[in-house]
């Protein structure tokens, strides 16, 4: 939920409660004042009637407003509400009724005076209407104020949010946030800027550490590999030779792995100078180089050239890109299968026969995800990284029992 919506919602909710309480208070207050006034009026009328009785001894009778009757009863005066049918209005009306017992000129009188009371329903209704009107007006005004505030006050905030969304550690660019002119936002910006600077520098030092570690590992690995290779030259019993070879193989694997990781880092760091090259030529060269392997697996190649695919890339990277894809197409093929290569002006596609089920499309480009037990699991990760750093997109599809890798310009 947006901040504004949330604030507005709680505003609305609390003002509704306040208004309901206000409505009740208003009702009781107005009711009280109104009936007070009426009773005061009734008392005044009663005093006049008593005065009239004393002076003229006439008995006024005006039903239902005034009733005077002689009575033996005496008692204290009392006020009550009563509902009486009003013949003039033709309906039941609520009256405020004052009953007094007076002794005037030796006679006892029971004086009943009534006045139409204000109807509660009407009070409630009018209060409710006026308060609702105020409420709506208030909300309307708030809405427009918020809306214009969003444009003026919140705009820099959203702009900064966009800048933050585009922030990437790998690009290693400092972020510069807009000044908002609002203390809280500017404070937040300050904290974010400091945080990203710290994260960036931590990331850089971590990367440097990894790089240096990778490089430093190469020298001891060289010593291990060279010495093992020398021992392999000796005329040792087969059992020993096998053990040494296994050790050598593992060390070699470690070293290759390390080299591939260094390569990945270098691609990420954009340490390769790009130049314009046609991938058509690279693909043909690689195909030529892989020919013995293709022939020994009895694979048929369908090579289609619909255009020249020009990319800006270091030649060594282009070779790795094409080589890894073609090697996979050969390695994961079946005997007598085929490989389709299609180059257009906008990209190229390599399809191969192989296992009759699709690969897990989103996982295969991750590091150390292996299709089979051999291999390092870095080939496609390197391919993907090369694509990403050169404005290319790679996609894996499986259709017609063929595994296809498509590289296109973004």
């Amino acid at each position, binding site marked *: 939920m947006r901040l504004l919506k949330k604030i507005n919602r709680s505003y609305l909710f609390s003002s509704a409660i306040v208004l309901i309480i206000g409505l009740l208070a208003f009702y009781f207050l107005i009711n009280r004042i109104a009936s007070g006034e009426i009773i005061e009026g009734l008392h005044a009328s009663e005093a006049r009637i008593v005065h009239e009785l004393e002076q003229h001894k006439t008995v006024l009778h005006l039903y239902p407003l005034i009733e005077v009757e002689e009575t033996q009863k005496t008692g204290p005066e009392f006020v009550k509400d009563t509902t009486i049918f009003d013949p003039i209005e033709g309906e039941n009306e609520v009256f405020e009724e004052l009953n007094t017992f007076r002794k005037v000129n030796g006679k006892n009188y029971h004086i009943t005076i009534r006045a139409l009371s204000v109807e509660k329903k009407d009070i409630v209704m009018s209060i409710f209407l006026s308060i609702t009107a105020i409420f709506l007006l208030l909300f309307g005004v708030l809405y427009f104020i918020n809306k214009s505030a969003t444009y003026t006050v919140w705009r820099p905030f959203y702009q900064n949010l966009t800048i933050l969304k585009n922030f990437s550690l790998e690009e290693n660019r400092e972020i510069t946030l807009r000044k908002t002119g609002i203390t809280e936002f500017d404070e937040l910006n300050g904290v974010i800027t400091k945080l990203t600077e710290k994260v960036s520098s931590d990331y850089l030092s971590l990367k440097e550490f990894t790089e240096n570690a990778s*490089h*430093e590992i*190469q*020298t001891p*690995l*060289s*010593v291990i*590999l*060279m*010495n093992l*290779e*020398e021992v*392999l*030259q000796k005329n040792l019993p*087969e059992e020993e*030779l*096998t053990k040494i*070879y296994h050790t*050598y*193989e593992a060390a*070699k*694997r470690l*070293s*290759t792995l390390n*080299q*591939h990781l*260094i*390569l990945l880092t*270098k691609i990420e760091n954009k*340490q*390769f100078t790009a130049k314009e090259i046609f991938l058509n030529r690279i693909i043909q060269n690689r195909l030529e*180089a892989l020919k*013995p*392997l293709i022939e*020994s697996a009895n694979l048929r190649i369908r090579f289609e050239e619909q255009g020249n695919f020009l990319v800006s890339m*270091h030649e*060594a990277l282009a070779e*790795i890109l094409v*080589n*890894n894809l073609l*090697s*996979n197409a*050969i*390695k994961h093929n079946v005997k007598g299968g085929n490989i389709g290569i299609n180059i257009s002006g906008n990209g190229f596609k390599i399809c191969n026969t192989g296992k009759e089920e699709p690969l897990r499309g989103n996982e295969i480009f991750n590091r150390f995800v292996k299709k*089979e037990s*051999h*291999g*390092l699991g870095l*080939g496609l990760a*390197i391919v993907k990284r090369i694509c990403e750093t050169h404005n290319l997109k790679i996609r894996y599809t499986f259709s017609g029992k063929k595994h296809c890798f498509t590289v296109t310009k973004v």
Partner: protein
Amino acid sequence: MKILIVEDEKNLLETVTVFLQKEGFVCEMADSYFAAEDKLAVFDYDIIILDIALPDGNGLDLLRKIKVSDNSAGILIVSSRNSLDDKLVGLDLGADDYITKPFHLSELNSRIRAVLRRRKFNGTKELVFREFRLLPEQWEAFVGDKKLQLTPKEYELLLYFVTNKNRVLTRQSIAEHLWGDYMDMADRFDFVYTHLNNLRKKIRRSGGSDYIKTVYGIGYKMEAE
């Protein structure tokens, strides 16, 4: 042939030295920039194997000095940083070749021999092994008088074996020699096997004997018996 090996990692320095001595070179060791400078001031070398990252200086600076001093030695740069920039700078400065750690000793041997051939230090550009005769500059190989029709990779393979005869060459070392560091491991051995089989077939067809022995599970060895 006299070689100066400049390398700060003592273990590596010794291993390389022992290997090259066995290959028939006269070797001198320098384990620092300072030591190397000292030796270069006094002696002449045919080949200098130069590690770029030295604790007391940059190998590339030493390379500049060597070139300025009109030293005619062939120079092979060694680096643990497989950085193309270092490579380009090194070659621009006049180094003859560039090799990345970790490297195979057989690979080092091949590179040294190639530099020597290019510089014609050993007078001949021909390599002879039994009935084989290789002309590396022309990329040609003969069995007796018969020319072998080899693909570039097959030729490189034969040259690698002849250069490193009587030595077990692991499949890894062969694959790396032929295709560099970045080819996927899995198909490399199939690939070595395929190339080697084709080469053997062609040699037999031309009437040569197959001196390449399979060292089971490890690699191959060209034996002169």
